[in-house]
């Protein structure tokens, strides 16, 4: 970073000299409004000493314009009227900094998103709005004060929430780079949904054979601390310095003493549905989720356990490891970065009554089919109909269940994996039962990945799977629990009714039901579909808008395994880049107390959502901790004495914006 030697001293006392730069943004702005007229308008505003317009202000040449004007001593404040500050505020701040001007003497007017884009069809209206924005930006610029950025150190450790394929990959990468990783997983094992899958498309390699060694790698990685059966309950702090509280749920088994002999499982009298097999197989109340679970720790499920005491008997548990009175433990860790890799829930098709899920035993979900096909699943990879435990002679798959559904209760997005997983499952069944009839009802097949189209082609040509373009209208149960399907073949343009032994609903992926908890815990935004929102859809796909927090895998939006792993590596790399710097700059938007005005009423202290305000018992005044303050402004509006000021959003500055915004309309409406 080249910083100018001749720094310009601005104290706020001298006369503001504002330069206004109107950007054409190609035709994004100039195609709607007259930018030259806007420039001329800017020149009429008080304290504006020069105004220019240029095709792209963010380009090298555009930036030079500003730099030259500052260095020539013509201006001491900068306003750029262009796009949203989200992308280019840092760009122009850097320009100011390089030219020797304090970067907080810059202000941006968003005349693209706020004026020309939304009012594309109303150029005159857009022009008026653009003028308002420029006037308000100049107004605030007039009152800006120089500020100093704060530098804070970054803790070289990362919290990863979710131990699926995304979380595990990010953990291994960060561990290899030498960073400490806390991998928090709420179920008793890592592995996530991928551990439930049988084979993966399009290569047909065995999912368990890929993921099980990966799970062991994570367990062996020297810098990774796996915290299974744990949940993040509190997150405090800010980029580089997050204070995280993790609750380790009680296993009711002393893991130090347990030798994993399994005698307790044999003796346990309680049989309940196994979540891992989606209720299609049973487990005991004391259990490990599946044989390859990592860590292979036994857990008592207290929702089902009756505390009969059999497993605790010394002749059953010789090492005496059962602890019915086990309590949750709380662990506090300090991390520099956080990666959200919480994954997904399967869409529940019960509400779509027309497909009969939950009413007819032989209607199952795609994930249940996956367990049926799995060689270590409930039927050892030989799928059967739930009603009579016999191999079905015909199977239909219905695509887009819950996805691409614009009716109430459905998701409008494409889940991106269902076309391929249905094709894969159909092929797997055909391999086992070549004589079986397989139908796939689809809207259109989305085979977009590497090798996917070829995979789909061969499913049709070589495997003879029948693809029928059209949705199923409704199903009903025929003789012997067969499923009668009514649908439309939109290519042949006729209504069809076929009877199959089993119907598989290719359900889509949806955001975790409790995503809102993580969202409020970490102050991370979610998009309308419920998934966590990336900072920029193209350029910052793994960052969130909260500094230091990254997102990976389906938590950000539906994606297949290769994309998930790629994003996990991206998130790990983003976190590592931040930690490698050792320190980060944080914006000085914290509140400050004007000591002589503070009466010590403590109103602000109880309202601060971040616990950033302390009380000085000696001076009897409030004190703001700049590192904890997030600049929300709650204390400013609450202070009865007007003793709180929020940097960069001071009352003086905001009032000026309001004044110039209102002043215009009174003049145009005839003075008063």
């Amino acid at each position, binding site marked *: 970073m080249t910083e100018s030697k001749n720094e310009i001293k601005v104290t706020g006392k001298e006369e503001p000299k504002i330069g206004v730069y109107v950007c054409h943004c190609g035709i994004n702005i100039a195609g709607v409004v007259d930018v030259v007229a806007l420039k001329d308008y800017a020149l009429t505003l008080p304290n504006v000493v020069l105004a220019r317009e240029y095709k792209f202000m963010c380009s090298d040449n555009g930036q030079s314009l500003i730099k030259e004007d500052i260095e020539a001593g013509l201006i001491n404040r900068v306003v750029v009227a262009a796009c949203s500050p989200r992308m280019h505020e840092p760009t122009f701040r850097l320009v100011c900094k390089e030219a020797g001007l304090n970067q907080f003497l810059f202000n941006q007017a968003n005349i693209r998103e706020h004026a020309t884009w939304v009012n594309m069809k109303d150029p005159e209206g857009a022009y008026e709005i653009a003028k308002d924005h420029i006037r308000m930006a100049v107004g605030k610029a007039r009152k800006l004060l120089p500020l100093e950025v704060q530098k804070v150190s970054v803790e070289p450790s990362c919290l990863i929430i979710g131990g699926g394929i995304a979380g595990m990959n990010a953990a291994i990468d960060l561990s290899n780079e030498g960073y400490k990783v806390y991998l928090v997983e709420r179920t008793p094992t890592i592995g996530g949904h991928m551990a439930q899958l049988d084979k993966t498309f399009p290569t047909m390699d065995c999912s368990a054979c890929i993921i099980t060694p990966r799970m062991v790698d994570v367990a062996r990685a020297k810098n990774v601390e796996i915290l299974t059966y744990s949940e993040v309950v509190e997150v405090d702090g800010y980029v580089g310095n997050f204070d995280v509280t993790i609750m380790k749920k009680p296993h009711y088994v002393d893991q130090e003493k347990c030798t994993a002999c399994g005698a307790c499982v044999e003796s346990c009298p309680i049989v309940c549905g196994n979540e891992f097999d989606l209720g299609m197989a049973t487990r005991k109340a004391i259990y490990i989720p599946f044989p390859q679970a990592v860590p292979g720790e036994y857990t008592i499920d207290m929702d089902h356990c009756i505390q009969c005491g059999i497993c605790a008997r010394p002749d059953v548990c010789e090492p005496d490891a059962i602890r019915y009175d086990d309590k949750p433990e709380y662990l506090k860790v300090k991390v520099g970065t956080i990666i959200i890799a919480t994954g997904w829930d399967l869409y529940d098709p019960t509400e779509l009554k027309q497909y009969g899920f939950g009413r007819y035993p032989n209607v199952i979900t795609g994930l249940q089919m996956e367990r049926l096909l799995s060689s270590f699943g409930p039927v050892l990879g030989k799928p059967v109909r739930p009603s009579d435990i016999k191999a079905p002679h015909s199977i239909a798959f219905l695509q887009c269940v819950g996805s691409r559904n614009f009716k*109430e209760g459905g998701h409008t997005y494409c889940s991106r994996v269902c076309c391929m997983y249905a094709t894969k499952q159909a092929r797997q069944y055909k391999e086992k039962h070549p004589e079986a009839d397989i139908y796939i009802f689809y809207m259109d097949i989305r085979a977009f990945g590497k090798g996917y189209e070829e995979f789909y082609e061969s499913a049709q040509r070589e495997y003879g799977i029948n693809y029928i373009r059209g949705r199923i209208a*409704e199903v009903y149960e025929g003789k012997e629990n067969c499923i009668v399907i009514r649908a439309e073949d939109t290519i042949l343009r006729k209504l069809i009714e076929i009877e199959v032994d089993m119907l598989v609903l290719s359900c889509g992926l949806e955001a975790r039901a409790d995503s809102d908890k993580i969202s409020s815990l970490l102050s991370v935004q979610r998009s309308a579909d419920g998934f966590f929102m990336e900072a920029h859809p193209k350029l910052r796909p793994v960052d969130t808008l909260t500094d230091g927090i990254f997102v990976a895998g389906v938590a950000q939006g539906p994606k297949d395994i290769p994309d998930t792993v790629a994003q996990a590596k991206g998130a790990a790399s983003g976190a590592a880049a931040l930690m490698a710097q050792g320190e980060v700059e944080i914006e000085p938007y914290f509140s400050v107390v004007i000591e002589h005005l503070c009466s010590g009423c403590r109103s602000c202290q109880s309202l601060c959502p971040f616990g950033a305000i302390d009380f000085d018992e000696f001076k009897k005044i409030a004190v703001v901790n700049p590192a904890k303050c997030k600049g929300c402004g709650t204390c400013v509006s609450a202070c009865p004495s007007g003793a709180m000021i929020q940097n960069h959003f001071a009352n003086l500055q905001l009032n000026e914006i309001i004044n110039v915004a209102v002043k215009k309309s009174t003049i145009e409406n005839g003075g008063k």
Partner: protein
Amino acid sequence: MSEYKWRYGLFLGCVIPNRYPMIERSIRDVFEELDAELLDLPGASCCPAPGVFRAFHIPTWLVIAARNISIAEELGVNPITGCNGCYGTLRDAWFDLEHNPEEKKHIQTILAKVGRTYKGNLEPKHIVQALYLDMGLNYLRDRIKYKFNDLKVGVHYGCHIVKPSDKRPWDGEYENPTFLDEIVELTGAKSIPYKDKFMCCGAGGAVRTAVKEVAADFTREKLTNMRDVGVDIIINCCPFCHLQLDLGQVEVNNFYKDIIGEPFKIPVIYITQLLGLAMGMDPNRLGLMKNHELTGVSPFTSIEPFLNLVKEQL
């Protein structure tokens, strides 16, 4: 104010007074027994029929529907109807006007010319909606005196009571609703699932008027599906469905005698007739027994088998 727990304005429509006055009798008696007052709507006209009128001229359909609703508004009560078709018209028109302020204003101007004011503040209801949502199953259950435990019922909903789903009060439940079955099962009877339960009776959309054979073909399919699972009676909540399933049986037995085998003779009972009977009301008053004081048409398909079945419990 009145001493009744609920008050509604009973919109009769056309089919009930012209063809099945006993349906009106049973609605009035059952609601009286349930502590709900049903006021008359003086000057009410045809709803007008949702299939026919709306298909020809929507503004005309809207004005007439709004006028009918405004009569209940004047009395300060929700309009209520025992007919799916009237329900379809009144509720759709009310819903459409509530979601289109401009159209609403236009309709208000037209109605003002005949001295009527339309406000749209009172939602039109179906009697089943009042029973299920306003009164609730627990309230009804407490008033049941007799249980018909061996009675197997084929429940027929009809179309307008559940669709279009966004204009109906069933909370998005339209593919496989159960509200009517739940009311039927309060009486101890068993609602038997049958194929294509939510299929049209055949009459709606002027099909009955235009091509009676096609309408009867629908009905034949429905009746066949019901007979396959062995229902004793058909319960419905719409006089037009009632007509098609009742008179329709005679037509089906006539048109399709070569393919149906045994002629159909399944008694068709309106929901408040069954409910009233279970509440211990007089079968004569409910129009279930031949009553010389009551004028109008007796059922085309005999309901004797039903009365024989429930006789012992009564």
